[in-house]
Structures are given as C-alpha cells and as structure tokens.
C-alpha cells in the first residue's frame, strides 16, 4: 500500500516538473540586467578576471559568509556525532 502511494507520488512529481520543464527555453535566457551589469563591470569594480569569483566574493560576499556559517554548523554537528561517549 505504502509502495503504491510512493510510486504515485513519484509519477505525479515527475509529470509536474516535466510540464514546467517543457515551458522553459534552452540556450536563450532572458536578458537579465544584473548579469549584464556583472559581466560589464566586474573587471573594473573588483579587479577579478573570473566573473564567477567576483560574484561569489565581492558582489555576494555576505551570501558566502552565510554559506561559511552553514558549513561550520554542519562540521560542528559531524564533530559532535563523532565524539567519545562516557557510557557504553
């Protein structure tokens, strides 16, 4: 019973995502002002030749700080899992 419900859920989800996917256009993204601005000005403003690195560390540096917090929390949790216990 649970298996049939799971299969139905999977099929419905794939159909839903597939309907969304057939409406997207591949290779022709809409001209976004943010991306155009970043490509035009990243060399001048941040001095980085790599535009992805400029976005990651200059334009969205606060976002990368949050990512570092998530990474730190996950590493802390993993470390707590591996600690020695007194009982057992």
């Amino acid at each position, binding site marked *: 019973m649970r298996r049939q419900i*799971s299969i139905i859920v999977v099929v419905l989800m794939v159909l839903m995502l597939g309907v969304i*996917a057939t409406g997207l256009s591949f290779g022709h993204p809409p001209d976004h002002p943010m991306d155009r601005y*970043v490509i035009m000005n990243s060399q001048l403003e941040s001095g980085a030749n790599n535009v992805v690195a400029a976005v990651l560390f200059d334009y969205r540096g606060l976002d*990368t700080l949050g990512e570092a917090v998530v990474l730190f929390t996950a590493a802390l949790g993993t470390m707590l899992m591996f600690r020695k216990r007194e009982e057992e």
Partner: protein
Amino acid sequence: MIEQIPYIAIVLLAGIGIATILLKKNVIKMIMGLAIIEGSVNLFLVTLGYREGGIAPIFTDAPAGVMVLPTVQAMTVTNIVIGFATTALLLAFAMILYRYYGSVETNHIRRLRE
C-alpha cells in the same frame, strides 16, 4: 520539445532521486537519493544560465563573443559546498543509527530502543 531535452533529462534525474528516497528502506541509499537530487538541482541551475555559443565567464585570454550567465554559476558553487556539508552530517547520523540499532534499515530502527 526537442530543445528542452536537457531540462527533461534533469527532471528524470530528479525523479530517480525522489523514487530512491521514497522506495528504498536503507538509510545510506536514501542519502544517495538526496545527493542525486542535489546533483540535478546543480545541473538545472547551470542549464538555466547557458547561452547559445557562450564562453565561460573568465576574461583571461577570452575570445570575443557572449558569455554564459555568471550569477547562477556562483549559486551552483554555493550549493555544491552546502550539499557536501549536509551529506557528511547525514552520513554521521546514519553511523549513529547503526551504532544504536545494529542496522540501517528503516524497518528495524522504527521500534523504540529498550
């Protein structure tokens, strides 16, 4: 329809991941399904920013021409790192489960520990 083949492949990959999470009973295999879904999300982001005939957004010795969108690629880098960290945390949880119950099958760990 023919130009959406990359998106349809990504949807099928995500479907494989969802089916793995819902149908498998082994916790390690469910974590593998989650990793597959993460991979499909990364592929979707990169595919969304692809521009036809575009080059990588690096200005060093770059030939003339349009560049693919850089912001979604930055998001993909963030997603890869966070996915790695959460997968490590989930595998540590699976290790604790195995230490307590002697099994990682969800049939066996559903009962409460005496």
